[in-house]
């Protein structure tokens, strides 16, 4: 058969030399390689103390933002839930009562807002879908491991950003 490329090499089985048969030089070479690795810099990241460096656009745990007056931005329009390919987001909408203007920005707000972190694929489509700039994926937090499945369903108590940190971010 005509070779397609002329790069094939003829393999020939030759007798091993005495040094190869004695096996000891090869062992010494191998020991040298492992000793080199012994003194190499370690690849491990000691997780709880150190964390891996993340990119600026890294998508982590969700946050429901407040506006400059501390009122929740979310109006429970449901676009994030529609956009979500994993169907991880559910919410129940409610009407804002008189006297609650400092709590919710629009007349309609989310009474419950839940993200199931086991379903979520952290694609960020909810972030893109949101017309009110209410939901974002943070670049510095992630959903930690837990023992029960229920604990992965994050409600408003864990999603809405705390009042004090409004100014900083």
């Amino acid at each position, binding site marked *: 058969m005509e070779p397609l490329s002329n790069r094939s090499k003829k393999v020939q089985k030759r007798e091993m030399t005495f040094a190869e048969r004695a096996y000891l030089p090869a062992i010494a070479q191998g020991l040298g*390689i492992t000793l080199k690795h*012994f003194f190499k810099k370690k690849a491990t990241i*000691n997780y709880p103390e150190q964390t891996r460096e993340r990119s600026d656009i890294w998508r982590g745990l969700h946050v429901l933002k407040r506006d400059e007056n501390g009122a929740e931005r979310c109006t429970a329009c449901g676009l994030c839930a529609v956009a979500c390919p994993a169907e991880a987001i559910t919410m129940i909408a409610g009407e804002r009562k008189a006297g609650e203007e400092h709590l919710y920005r629009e007349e309609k707000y989310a009474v419950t807002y839940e993200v199931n972190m086991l379903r979520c694929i952290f694609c960020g489509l909810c972030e893109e879908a949101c017309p009110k700039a209410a939901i974002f994926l943070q670049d510095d937090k992630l959903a930690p491991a837990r023992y029960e499945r229920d604990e992965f369903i994050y409600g408003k108590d864990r999603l809405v950003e705390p009042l004090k940190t409004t100014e900083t971010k």
Partner: protein
Amino acid sequence: MESVDLIYRGIFILVIFGITLLIATYSTYFERKIAAFIQDRVGPNRAGPFGLLQPLADAGKLFFKEEFIPAKANKALFIIGPGIAMLVAGMSSAVIPFGDMLLVGGREIWLQAIEVNIGVLYVFGIVSLGVYGLMIGGWASNNKFSLLGAIRAASQNISYELAMGLSLIAVIMMTGSLSLREIAEQQQGFNWNIWYQPLGFILFLVCAFAETNRTPFDLPESEAELIGGYHTEYGSMKLGMYLFAEYINIFVVSAVMSTLYFGAYNFPFMENLRSAISDPVLANNVVTIVGVAVMFAKIFAFIFFFMWVRWTLPRFRYDQLMKLGWQILIPLAILNVVLTGGAILLKDYLF
């Protein structure tokens, strides 16, 4: 023997036993650390500073596990097996000279538990008994894989004991004594046996790996093909005993190798140090203590080498193991004996 001597002997034996156990315990830690370092990891570092309490945590875990004995196993032998392995391993360090003599209050204190004129034979007799622990445990488990592991252990130990004994004969021919202390004393200063017996040392080293069931000759417990070999059915502290016995054996073999080939407690410029100190008693004690430190440094270097090799070489195939033992090591050992004999005769003839 005076009663003071007896008390001293008792204390010394307890101390040596304690040191043996301590070294075996921390060998598990260093095994994991060295494995990790060679594989670019950091190893156990959670229990205590640098993970130094890890062996204690492991032992605690093993003690609290269920004492499981398989229903069809021979119960008595199943329990005796690890006991024999541990007992035999603990006995073998009795004749090793860890140091020269200390002078305390006009009394000579020899840093060796028992001085017998057949020290080498004692060590080899005891070490070859160790295979009974593996054999009995593997057979009593009533499990195919355990039995296979036990058979492998027995045949491997028997095969390699031959080459080991033959490579040793050359050393004994040179020193003319079976006493480990005398062999150590003849290697005064830097006059170590390794310079005269390089081939014998390599043979002995290879056989030592096989005798202690370490990689590349860890076929009795090859986890990939025999699940765990002779200790497949073992759990809890009985498994711990087997692992412990293995590490004690490594320690003892390292000590024997340093004594036979690397001059035991002797170190270069020993006499210069001795003559530098004017007080003879103090000089003797300083040299002895440095010698003990040197001895342990040699032992630790060998233990490190055992671990280093474990994470470098893959396991031999069983037929390769047998071929190496019978067709290569034994003829080479005999050649070494003949060469040594010839050299001794030539030396007598010339000088």
